[in-house]
């Protein structure tokens, strides 16, 4: 049997949207391209914001950093909404299984009490710090320019809220779902000297007006240090100190941090290589925030891992900055 398909008259008259064609040529486009480029409105705004009358509603001047084309900040992961949720859905399925396994085997009960207390004192309060990360990235979504970066920022923001919930779930896994550990952890967050520097840093970042400065303070300076302390150094520490089971519960945060760093490295690199103006501005922010981060993290890093830990984390930050051409 032959099937006749009439295809001769079914030729497309164009391959993609005009703005995509202007950027990438007349050829079929990827879904990332169509979903991302030039989506932000750029011209002919109607009203002055009641809360920011000197700027337009979408205004590149909401940061001191200047880009010829904000769409240069492409996400190396090419996440638009669909791939983002599908990727995170897979990761959460894995996390869900880990948590189930942990609970089913009663692994929480087999932890020795000093380790349990250490987790409640020095790990679970991260759930609050993650809320600041959520807000700082949401700030960039609201005030940033170009969907390439603003969409990645909201993905980061939602991720960080997810992190806050996972840290809380670790608490629930340890306290048998009573929530007692969360209440204790919150007291540590509010008054334990180990946390006050971090809390002050978080509160300070929430008052930043320039959205790219918020990105630097949060996603570059603080996160690089936190990621190294918690997801590398503390990971090793747990392995050596009978805490392997807990690694199951940290896996999501660890994997996610790696994934996110590919994006934030790329954003940083593109912005600082754009111009001297940008790299000077970014350097100025970094020098301000690294001093604050040093003070903020010292007591926490010492309590968590000992005196040398923070210096090691700063070495990682140094390396990360050097890699993108920022020599502090």
């Amino acid at each position, binding site marked *: 049997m032959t099937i006749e398909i009439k295809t001769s008259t079914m030729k497309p008259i164009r391959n993609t949207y005009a703005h995509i064609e202007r950027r990438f040529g007349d050829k079929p486009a990827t879904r990332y391209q169509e979903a991302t480029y030039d989506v932000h409105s750029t011209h002919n705004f109607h009203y*002055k914001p009641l809360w*920011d*009358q000197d700027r337009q509603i979408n205004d590149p001047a909401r940061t001191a950093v200047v880009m010829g084309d904000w769409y240069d900040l492409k996400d190396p992961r090419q996440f638009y909404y669909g791939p983002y949720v599908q990727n995170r859905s897979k990761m959460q399925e894995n996390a869900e299984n880990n948590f189930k396994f942990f609970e089913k085997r009663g692994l929480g009960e087999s932890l020795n009490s000093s380790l349990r207390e250490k987790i409640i004192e020095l790990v679970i309060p991260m759930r609050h710090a993650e809320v600041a990360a959520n807000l700082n990235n949401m700030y960039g979504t609201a005030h940033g320019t170009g969907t390439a970066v603003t969409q990645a920022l909201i993905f980061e923001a939602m991720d960080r809220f997810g992190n806050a919930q996972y840290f809380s779930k670790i608490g629930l896994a340890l306290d048998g779902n009573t929530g007692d550990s969360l209440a204790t952890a919150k007291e540590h967050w509010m008054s334990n000297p180990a946390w006050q520097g971090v809390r002050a840093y978080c509160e300070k970042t929430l008052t930043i007006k320039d959205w790219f400065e918020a990105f630097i303070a949060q996603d570059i300076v603080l996160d690089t240090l936190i990621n190294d302390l918690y997801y590398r150094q503390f990971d090793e520490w747990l392995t050596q100190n009978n805490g392997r089971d807990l690694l199951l519960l940290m896996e999501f945060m660890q994997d996610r941090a790696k994934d996110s760093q590919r994006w934030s490295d790329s954003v940083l690199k593109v912005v600082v290589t754009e111009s001297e103006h940008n790299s000077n501005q970014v350097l100025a922010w970094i020098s301000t925030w690294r001093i604050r981060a040093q003070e903020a993290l010292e007591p926490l890093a010492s309590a968590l891992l000992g005196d040398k830990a923070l210096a090691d984390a700063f070495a990682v930050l140094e390396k990360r900055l050097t890699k993108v051409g920022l020599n502090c």
Partner: protein
Amino acid sequence: MTIRALRDDYHGEFKDSLEKFGGAQLVYLGWDKHQMFCSSRAFPLPPEMRFQELLDNVMPEAFGQHPEFTQIDWNKAQWILDNSAFQPDHSKSLTELDIGHKSLLRLVTPELTGYKGAGI
């Protein structure tokens, strides 16, 4: 009413003020009960334009497509300027007649009831 804004000195820009039209002023022209034209329309006109010139040169452009346009008796035509009855001296200019920037001038022709008498 004062607007509630973060700062008390909130002011908008008057985006359509007179000086932005390169010497012209805007006049909106409508023809009541002739809805072939979906709405009144905006014309940038020199303020010194005489009313007669408006009748001769602008009106055909505005309403000439209507089948009843040629039947208009301009001597009997009634006018509403900015919601008030108006009797223009055809020899005077827009400025002299108080036809201001963004004034709405409506032509009323009660004897012409529009296409099929339906106000169209």
